[in-house]
Every structure is written in structure tokens, then in C-alpha cells.
């Protein structure tokens, strides 16, 4: 199934489900039922399925469909959950403290979810377009490798030319640059200024170094570019992983508050029909 066909199918199913839910809520409203109970339980069910995706990833041995299918369900059910949430709360902030806390948690959860979907759709392509895609966990090792290589090149330059120009530049600029990830926010903002600045600096050294060191500078520049790509990969992949630091804790917190909310709703709902 093509991506477009899959998207069409999933979108159609989601819209049909949304229409059914809307119809059910409307009919309950017409029948003088308290629709918040219907929408509330639908929300609870949706949350269970959405949270089930995380559980599914922790239980890879169970034959419960593949993760990709779960992700599709997670994404489209997430869209439906937004609509359900609006039906439940009436597109307004609740008045009570507890309900407001839950509202903020769920809204944050939904917003982070939307953010996650957005960056999951956008970032991979950008990473590929920017340069070599590196597995996130391997980035430190490659950074260490590049740092080591640049250190070797600086040492070699001193040994070959008895000039300290490259070594001095290494000490002042290259060593800190390769020591750890750099320019995190500038990469997220899409800025290439740090990289260009480093390249200009390396090029500006050409007039001060011996001819033998020209090759060394070229090799250093190649590693600077590779390190810059590592930083880029690190920044965006950190974001890809980092949004879950909000999304998942918010899920747990929202579940706790939602349980209290449901208990209170039923305990004090005897005035309703």
C-alpha cells in the first residue's frame, strides 16, 4: 500500500469514527443525557489505546501487530482524541482547579503529540538532506573519532613543519569544537553560520602555513564539516527524542488526574441523569 493510499484510508476511517462519535454525542444531548459521561469514557478508551503504544514497544515479544501499525493508530486516534476532548470540555477552559489541571495536562499532551507528529514527518527528510544520517547513539563515538583525528593532524603538522600555526589553531578553536556537541540551538534554527565561520577561519590560515600544511588544513576542514553534521544530527535527533520527555510524563500525570476526575465525577454525579 502506498503512502498516499494508507493516508487516505486512515484519514477516512478517522473521519468516519469522528462522525459516529459526533452523532452519538448529539443523540445523547437530544435525549437529555449528560454527554460528558459519553465523551469522558470515549476519552478514557482513547487514552488507553494511545498509551498502549508505549506498552506495546515495551513488550515486543507479543504478537500485537507491528509498531508501524501501532504508530498509525496512535497518530490518527490522537487526532480523534483532540476532537473528543473538545466535545468533552466544550472548547473552553474548565472552572475548577482539578479540572483545569487535567485540562492543562491533556492540552499539553495533545500539543506535544502534534509536535511529535510534525517533527517526525519533517526532520528525517531534513537530516538526510543535510548530510550523512548518523544513529543517535553512535554520535559520541564518531565525535570522539573526529576529535582524535584532528588532534593527530595537528600533531603531525607540528612534526612536519615545525610550525605551531595549525597546532595553535587546534588548541584555541578546534579542540573545544570537537570536545562536545556545539551550536545546538543554531542548528535547530537552521543556521549554517558556525560552520561557515569555521571554514573561513581555516581558509584564512592558508596564508600563514607552509605548503605541506595546506593538505592538513583541507583534512581538518573535512572533519570540521563532519563534526558540524554530527552536531546537526545531534540537535535534531535530540529533539526527536526529547519531545517524548514531555509527552510521556504528561501522559502518566494525566492518567493519574483523570482517574481522580472519573471517580469524583461518578461519586458526585447523582444529580445528573
Amino acid at each position, binding site marked *: 500500500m502506498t503512502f498516499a493510499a494508507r493516508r487516505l484510508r486512515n484519514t477516512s476511517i478517522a473521519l468516519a469514527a469522528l462522525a459516529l462519535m459526533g452523532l452519538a454525542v448529539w443523540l445523547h444531548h*437530544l*435525549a437529555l443525557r449528560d454527554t460528558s459521561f459519553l465523551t469522558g469514557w470515549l476519552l478514557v478508551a482513547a487514552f488507553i489505546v494511545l498509551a498502549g503504544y508505549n506498552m506495546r514497544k515495551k513488550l515486543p515479544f507479543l504478537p500485537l501487530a507491528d509498531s508501524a501499525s501501532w504508530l498509525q493508530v496512535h497518530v490518527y486516534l490522537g487526532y480523534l482524541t483532540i476532537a473528543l476532548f473538545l466535545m468533552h470540555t466544550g472548547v473552553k477552559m474548565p472552572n475548577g*482547579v*482539578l479540572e483545569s489541571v487535567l485540562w492543562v495536562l491533556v492540552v499539553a499532551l495533545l500539543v506535544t503529540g502534534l509536535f511529535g507528529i510534525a517533527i517526525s514527518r519533517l526532520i528525517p527528510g531534513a537530516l538526510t538532506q543535510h548530510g550523512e544520517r548518523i544513529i543517535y547513539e553512535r554520535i*559520541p563515538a564518531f565525535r570522539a573519532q573526529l576529535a582524535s583525528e584532528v588532534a593527530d593532524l595537528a600533531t603531525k603538522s607540528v612534526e612536519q613543519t615545525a610550525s605551531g600555526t595549525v597546532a595553535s589553531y587546534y588548541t584555541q578553536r578546534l579542540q573545544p569544537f570537537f570536545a562536545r556537541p556545539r551550536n545546538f540551538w543554531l542548528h535547530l534554527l537552521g543556521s549554517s553560520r558556525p560552520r561557515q565561520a569555521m571554514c573561513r577561519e581555516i581558509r584564512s590560515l592558508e596564508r600563514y602555513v607552509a605548503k605541506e600544511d595546506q593538505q592538513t588544513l583541507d583534512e581538518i576542514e573535512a572533519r570540521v564539516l*563532519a563534526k558540524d553534521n554530527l552536531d546537526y544530527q545531534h540537535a535534531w535527533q535530540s529533539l526527536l527524542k526529547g519531545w517524548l520527555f514531555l509527552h510521556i510524563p504528561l501522559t*502518566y500525570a494525566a492518567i493519574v*488526574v483523570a482517574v481522580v476526575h472519573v471517580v469524583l465525577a461518578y461519586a458526585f454525579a447523582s444529580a445528573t441523569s
Partner: protein
Amino acid sequence: MIRFLQSFDFRKSRYARPNQTWVCGREAEGAPCRLGPDSRGRCRAAGECMPRRDGDAWCCTRPQSAGGPCVEGPRPDGTCCRQIPRCQPVRSVRAKRGLAARWAAAVAVGVMALALYGSDAADWLSPGGLTAHHAEIGDCATCHEDFDGSPADWVRAAFNGVPDAHQGDSRQCLTCHEMGDNAFDPHGADEQRLAQSTEAQQASLAANVRPIGLNLAGRALREPDELGEGTACASCHSEHQGADASLTEMSDGQCQSCHTLKFASLSSGHPPFQSYPYDRRTGINFDHVRHIRKHFPETDGAEAPEQCVDCHATDSAGALMQTASFEETCAACHTADVRGTNAAGSPGIPAITVPGLDVMSLREADAAIGAWPELSDQPLTPFMQVLLANGRVEQEHMARFRQLDPLDLRDAEPADIEAVEAVAWGVKELVYDLISDGPAALQPSISAALGREVASDTAARMLAGLPLETVRGAQAEWFPDLAREVAMHRAGKEVAIPAGEFAAVSEDDGGSDTEGEAAEDAGQADILSGDDDSGGDLSGGGEESGGGDILSGAEEEAGGDLLGGSGDSGDDILGGDGGSGDDILGGDADSGGDILGGGEEDAGGDLLGGDSGGGILSGEEEGDTGGDLLGGDAGGSEDEAKVEVALPAPDPERWSRLGGWYRDYFALRYRPRGHADPFLATWLDVTGAAQGPAADAVFEGLAVDGGPGKCVKCHSVDETKGGTLAVNWTQPRSSSGEHNFTRFAHDPHITSVATEDGCATCHAFAPEADYQASFDDRSAATFASNFQPIGEDTCTSCHVESKAGNACTQCHDYHVGEAMRVEADTRLDDMTMSAKEE
């Protein structure tokens, strides 16, 4: 120049395990050890490989991805020669995320615990502010019974499910809001009323345009009335939405959710109005068509209204169209009807009477009733039957008495005589008690006869300020020896009827009286006078009832007396009294042209008349008796008679023409004082609300068309569900507290019709309607209005969604019946405590 770093060759690529909880502490430096920490986060670093024994030698096992076997090889003891410095393992990204999630959950649990168990739990847990109406309710338990329990109780309550409205928190609403017996039934109406309404609407609807949503809702979900759980208040009134939220906002669809007939809008599918708004008989019998076409043109132009507003105006709420007061509208023509000025018969109501008895037969039967006025022919009126209740007369005696003709007891059985005796003593004791204890003495009798307690103020209105002197005067006339007789009777002694009562009295008191000596308290003692209260017989010196005496001045029906002056006597030679005519010497009201008429006013030109001027022997000019040549008060000499001027002796009935009590022979009568007379209104209300023969008799006597006061000529009588009768004294008012299904306010509509046909835009006459037939029975549902019903078209010309709106609640109320009241449950002793504390 791009440098590619990543290789997926297994010999060059380290196997990554991102799912592991712990990673090497040197991971961030890019130089993690190959083994990594264990699952509990402990560093396992020892050597770069775990040498393998190969015979007697140890071989390096470092993989290719880590550089392959080292040059040095393992140590002789089999350990790796390249020991890795130990590190402090760190959590993986995934583990950190899991930790954050657990922390978030823990914080949430902590916050929830604070919310549930903290001192401000109510503030934390409240789902929102209350509306301004309920803002003062500070305690959640006021509305939510379970709130006083612990959170564990709340969990239990949550799992117990939602109880129905009859058992749930909706009951708490009723502690303040009085909603009647059917608070949780649809509309708060009883089942019968709803069924009738449903049946009527279903019968009236030909084409039911049922919206699809309501169709689906009806099929998919049980309708609330099918649940049998009652309708909870919060079904419609949603609280905790903030101070400005509306508690009564309802959609049209919700209104129709329970209705068997569902339709799109007022202009599409709404049931026809039928006879709206004339579905109930008007409280006042006022035939608009007849008045406007016939009566008004016959009256003085100044009295006839010219516009609707001359009689009608909206009430203070601008809702109901009210009629101006009787005094402003009807009094000009109908005051005389109320006071009975133009009545053919006596306008006075015989409230207290001395029933006429066959005294001769009673005497022969040795009945012990003491002296009894033999000339009384009064019946035992319904009022008297009421006043003789409560043990004055036993019911069996009263029942037997009703079967008798008390004026003819010749064939009476002993039991009949016993019943007559009981009634006679009942009457005497009634008069005695009335004198000794006042009208309050009658309150128990009234209560007993009506079968319910009659309040003091009601009893006071029922006796309308009966004056002591009137009763005393009556007693003196009726039962002059009452005190002695009652005393003897109560002592258990028999009190025989005096033989030849009036003859004896004459012998005792006036037998030797001359013409001028037979003075009596109320008589004018004219020798030939025939006035009602006068005695003054020529030979009979009795009081008023000198039956059979030659010149007796008897009261009614002293027929056959030679000179008897009686009420309805006719053909008496000297008879004189009201209504008599053509008597030779008759003299009384209305008599005219009598030769010796000694009557009262209107008698003129009598030869010896003692009333009006012009009589030859009259001692007075204007219609006052006394001082006549042959008439005489006690002890008056001829000279004195010539100079004395006696007090007038008016006809009591005429004298009381402005209303009040008066004595008329053997009855104390009450004449209505005017419109809204409290005596009549109270008797009608009290006896209408009571059941029983005595109450019915009084009510029917007063409620008869043309009866005293003519109350029911205009005020219709409704039979209630309980079988009692209610007179419609007042017109419906907005403040009456009655809520109906349909609500209409005149004021907002007046401007819209002012420029067209005015009131006739909606209220067009129906001259062919038999309006008067509506009042032939006592069912409020029997009604033929002399206005044409208002059709839906009249309303839908404006009431569409785009103009004046057509929401259900614009014209309909949900709660019907008595007005919802908010009641404060405040104990007086609590208030006392507060006062003390202060």
C-alpha cells in the same frame, strides 16, 4: 569535502542496545566499553576481552569491531592485559524518559493526595464556580450528600453507580426549591395531566414532521420517561459553569427529546393551537358580544366603555391582560343587583331563624319546648342547620326534622315530637349562647357542620359583625323567657309550652292594657297600626305575634285575623304589613290608600295613618308613627300625645338597604353591603370547599342565579377534582404563582399590533358562540368563548427564527403547577441562640 563516518560492517560497527537502561559512563566521550554496565547500572569493565583458553595458552578474543586481537595477548593467569578503567554508568535516554514519567506520575499522585485530603479539598475538587444564585452555598455537602464522607467513600459511591433522581442529589435541590409532589416527573406534572396533554396533542396532529435526529435518538436511546428513574434537576440545570452561566438554557431538541410528537419548528409541524387561549372558561361571566352590541348602547354614554383599554390593562409584569376593578367597570350598572335593591323578593339572607312549629299540636303532645312563637312560619334554613351542628341537635333528630312538616304535627309520631323538641331547644340554646358568648359560640358548630376547622377570622367574616343588640332584640321578641327556660332545660327539668301562650301573656302583661297602654319595646302601639314590630292590639297586649287577636299586630301570616296585620296576609279587614294591599285598615310599606293604614313609608293619604303625613288622626307629619290620636305609647296622656314626637319606625329591610343585619319578624337577616361582601364570599368559599348536606344546602342557596348578592351571576363556579366547588372571585394574575405549559406576555406584543387592528389582530369576536351556555354547568372545561381562537399563523408571522425567534422556551415553561419557591429552613431556636450569643 564530505567525510562519511558511519559504516554498518559488523566488523567495524559496534552493536548498539538503546533499550538498555544503563549505558557506559564513557559513552558521552565516544569511548564506551564493549561490555557496558549490567541491568542494575553497575560497571562491568574488566578487560577489553575475556581471553579464551586454547590448550595451555590464552587467546585474545577482542572482536574486529574493537580492533581485533591485541598484540600483547592475555596475561599468564588468563586475564586481559588491557584493563578498562571502571566508569560510573549512566541511564540511557529511554531510561531517563521512563524516570521522568515515573516522577511525573509521582508528582501527580502527590498533588492529587493534597487535593483530596488537604484542608482546601472543596476548593480543589470543585468543578467550577456556582452561578450567582447559588454563590452563597459554601459547603459541597449541601448539594452532594456523599461529600461528607472520606475519599474512600467517594470511590465507593462512584462504583455504586448513579442513583435515579428520586434517590440522588436532586433531592437536595428540594430542600430549598419547593417543587410539589411530582418534582422528578416530567414537567413536575402528575401522570394524568401529562397523559391527557399527550393524548390531546397526538389527536390534534395530522402530519408529524419528525426531525431525523430526534427520530434516531428515540430509536437508539431510551427516552427519559421510559427509564422510570425520574428526571434529575441537573439534566437541564447544569451548575459549576461559573457565575454568569445560564441554568435554564435548553435547546429545542432537548425539549422534544421526551415528547412523543417531535417536529421541526413552530411553523413546521407544531401542533395546532386548538382553542388557544380560550381553553378554559373565564372566571367572570362577561359576554363581550352581548354587552357591546346590546347593553352598552342602552346605557348612558358616559358609562359605556369605548375602547378595550377602558376596561383592560396588563398587570405589573406586563404579561396577563387584567380587567379593571368592579368599581371601575361594572359598578355603574350592577351595584343595585349586588345590594338587591331591585330584587323582587327580600334581599336579606335569613341567617338565624325561628322555625315555625305547630305549637298547638306540640302542646297537645305535651312537648316540652317552653314558649314558642306560634306565628312563625320560617323554615329551618340551611344556615340554621349549619349553626345547629356540633351537638346542638343530634344528626338523627335533624334528619328526622327535615322529613317533617313542622307546621303540621297533628300526625307526628313520638319520635317526631322528640326531634322537634331537640330542634326547638337547639334554636333556643343557639340564641342563648349567641347572647352569652357572642358569635364565637357558633364557631364550633360551623366547623362541625363543614367537617373542618374554621379559623376565627373566617368565622368572624361568616357572622359579619352580628351586633349584640340585634340578637337581644330578637330574643326579646322570640323568646322573652329564654333565660329561665334554658336554665330549667339544662337542669333537666321539663319546660312545658304555656297554655294559650299569647292569651296568657296578654293577661299577664297587657290584658288590661288600654289602647295606649300596650307598649312594647319595639312596637309603636298604635291602636290600628299594623307595623311589623308593633304590638299595640286593642285587646291583645302581646308583643308582635298576636295571632288570633282582634286587633293583633302580628307579623306574617296571621291570616284570618279580624284586624290582623301580617306580612303576607291578604284580605284582612285591618291587616297591615308589607305586601298587603287593599286592606281596609291595612297599613305598611307599599300599602297605599288604606283607610286606617298605620304603615310605614310610602303610605300616604291614610285616614288614620300613623306614618306618613296627611292622616287625619296622624300625630306626625312625616312617615313616623306615634302620637296619633288613637295611637299611643305607654302612659301617654292626650295632651302629652299631642306634643310628643315619636321616633320613626322604618322598615328594617329598607333601613338596611346599605347592608348589614336586621330583624325581620322571626329571622335575623343579612343584607349584602356591596360588591365583594365578606359574608357572602366567605360562606360561599367555606361551604363550597366543604362537603355534606348542610354545606351543600347553604352553597346552593347562595349560588343560585339571582340569589342574594347575585354573586354567581358573574362569578363562575368550578367543580374541583375533589368534588368541591370554588367560586372564581379573582382573575388570574402573574403573581398567583401558577405556571402553565404556555407563557405569553401581552406587553411585548402590544407595540407590534398597535398600528394594525389593535387587539382584534389576535382577539376577533365570535358572535355565533353560545357563550352563556358555558356557564350552565360547573366544569371549567365547558367553554364557548365569544372570541375566535388564535391560530398558529397569527404567531408565525413574526415568530420565525430570523425575526422574533421560535425557540420552545420562548413560549413554554417546563415546570408547571405552583410556582417554585425557595424556602429557608431556619429554626427559631437557632435564631434565639444567635441573639444570645450576640
